[in-house]
């Protein structure tokens, strides 16, 4: 077992228990590995590395939204890899590339390299959020972008506290769908 697996799994377990700092460290470390992974794949498939950052963010969002599907009895690396690979295949299918030539890769590849370049995706989240229903928009903006507490967000958005939680959760999912649609051919 690699030190990466041990460290990242520890972060994941803490994050599942609600530790925000661990969650942030986990997503940061995973995003640099995802960047290296996607750049490598896209170049090998003859596509520009510029799509890589879009994919990194889709995968990071997916890891966040689907983190409840990680089974702590299992290794983290194959779980992350499966999501990364799924998002790659989905991306290639969406952008009408042939996905028969997606190489079957090994789970370890996902942890193979780091790429810390400070990149920007083509997604404009603020603009995409305008498309969300008002409650979701308000809840995500208050809680996720401004860091208000659930109670403060509830007051601002005119929702109950559980309403805020539900709207953040559904809003992130809806945002992931919007981002996926945004990917240009």
């Amino acid at each position, binding site marked *: 077992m690699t030190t990466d697996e041990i460290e990242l799994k520890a972060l994941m377990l803490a994050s599942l228990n609600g530790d925000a700092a661990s969650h942030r460290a986990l997503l940061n470390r995973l995003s640099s590995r995802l960047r290296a992974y996607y750049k490598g794949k896209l170049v090998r498939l003859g596509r520009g590395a510029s799509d890589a950052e879009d994919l990194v963010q889709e995968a990071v969002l997916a890891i966040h939204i689907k983190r409840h*599907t990680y089974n702590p009895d*299992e290794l983290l690396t194959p779980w992350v890899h499966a999501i990364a690979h799924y998002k790659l295949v989905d991306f290639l299918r969406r952008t009408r590339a042939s996905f028969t030539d997606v190489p079957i890769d090994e789970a370890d590849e996902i942890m193979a390299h780091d790429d810390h370049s400070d*990149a920007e995706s083509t997604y404009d989240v603020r603009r995409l959020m305008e498309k969300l229903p008002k409650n979701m928009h308000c809840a995500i903006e208050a809680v*996720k972008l401004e*860091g208000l*507490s659930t109670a403060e967000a509830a007051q601002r958005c005119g929702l109950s506290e559980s309403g805020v939680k539900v709207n953040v959760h559904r809003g992130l999912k809806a945002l992931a769908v919007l981002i996926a649609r945004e990917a240009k051919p």
Partner: protein
Amino acid sequence: MKTDDLVAALSTRIEPVNRRLVNWTMGIALLAAAVVALGLMLAGLGIRADLMTARALTFLVLKLAFAVGVVGVSSIYLMRLTRPGGERRTSSIRIMMPFAAIVLLAAVSLGLAPSSHWDEMVMGDQWLECLLSIPIIAIAPFAIIVAAMRKAAPTSLERTGAFAGLIAGGVSAMGYALHCTDDSLPFIAIWYGGTMLLCTLAGAALGPRLLRW
């Protein structure tokens, strides 16, 4: 958008995660699927009148054993498919076992019977009703299982759809067994087995469209 900003936003105010959510959701969905299939069968078709005779009970047990075997094995696979990468640990070959068993039994029972009876044993009285009822009743359980699966994260959508379809067909066949008066092994193998496979193919075709995330 910068990835750092996305990570920062996602890490703001996070909640502890319920790790049992996926298993719970799927467990409840499977139970609900079976109950709904039974309810639809009772409402639409009703239980066969001669259920309490020895011959009817014997064949009910056989039909149920086949359907329960299929549902049981495929439920185990479906549970694995709820999590990313689950398909890598799933060689689906064991799902063939209930089918192989019923085909074998059907072949033996045909071999023991005079060939003049074969037509009756294979086609029964109600093959068309069986062919239509099992897939139609399976629609609602399929929808329930797919809805639950959307809360999970399957990364092999065709296979997940196929297993969802097979389970839906299986619970539907469990319900239909209480109504069906065709008591022969070849009939069970062809019409129960065939309709379940039909549901599997439909599920595989619908999976990528319904389960994408």
